[in-house]
C-alpha cells in the first residue's frame, strides 16, 4: 500500500530556533494535513491544505507556523521560533477525495516526526 513519508523521524532543536518538518504525501492525493500529539495527550488538528492554500487551521496554528508545498511532492511544516511547548510528535497526512465515493473519509498518516525543543 502507498504510504506517507516523513523526515526526520526525530528532531532536536534549541528553543527559539526555526525547524522545518518534511512530508512526502501519497502521489495522487490532493488534500494534506498536519496533526500533532503532545506526549500523553490527544492527536490535535493543526492545518489542512488544498490547491496550494490553507483550507482550515486550528487555534494552535498561530503566526509561528506555516505550511508550504514547494514542489510537486513535498509538504512542509515550518515553526519559526520554537517554544518548549512545541515538543510533540507531528503527523503528516494526505487523502484522496475520490475514494469510496465520499470526500476525504480516510486519512493516510505518516509515521511522525518527534520534535524535542530544549
Amino acid at each position, binding site marked *: 500500500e502507498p504510504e506517507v513519508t516523513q523526515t526526520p523521524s526525530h528532531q532536536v532543536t534549541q528553543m527559539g530556533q526555526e525547524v522545518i518538518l518534511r512530508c512526502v504525501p501519497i502521489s495522487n492525493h490532493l*488534500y494534506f494535513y498536519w*496533526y500533532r500529539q503532545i506526549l500523553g*495527550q490527544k492527536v490535535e*488538528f493543526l492545518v489542512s491544505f488544498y490547491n496550494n492554500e490553507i483550507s482550515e487551521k486550528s487555534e494552535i496554528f498561530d503566526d509561528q507556523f506555516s505550511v508550504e508545498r514547494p514542489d510537486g511532492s513535498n509538504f512542509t511544516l515550518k515553526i519559526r521560533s520554537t517554544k518548549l511547548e512545541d515538543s510533540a510528535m507531528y503527523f503528516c*497526512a494526505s487523502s484522496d477525495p475520490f475514494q469510496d465515493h465520499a*470526500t*476525504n473519509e*480516510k*486519512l493516510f*498518516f505518516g509515521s511522525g516526526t518527534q520534535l524535542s525543543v530544549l
Partner: protein
Amino acid sequence: AQSVTQLDSQVPVFEEAPVELRCNYSSSVSVYLFWYVQYPNQGLQLLLKYLSGSTLVKGINGFEAEFNKSQTSFHLRKPSVHISDTAEYFCAVSDPYTGGFKTIFGAGTRLFVKA
C-alpha cells in the same frame, strides 16, 4: 462543534479475553466515524470506519465497531485479544460535508494485553 469522548484512558485485559473500547461523540450533523490504532513508535493506522449503511462495521485484525445513533456511540470490540493488540486506540469523527478537512480525535485508550 464536534467532539469525541473516549471513556477509558487505559484498559488492561488478559490474552484471549474479549474487549470493548468505548467512544461517544457529539455532533449536530451526520458524521463519519473512525477508529485508528497506534502501535509503539509508529504512526496512526486506520482500523475501521463507518460512513453509512450497516451499523456494524468490521475492520482489520478482527476488530469491529457498532454505530449507535440514538446513544451517539461507536464502541470498538474484539472477541479475543492477542498480545500484539497492545497499542493506543483513537476514536475519531469527521463531518462528511467538510470531509477530511478536519478530523477530531478522542484522547485515546491504551489497551494493555497481558499473558
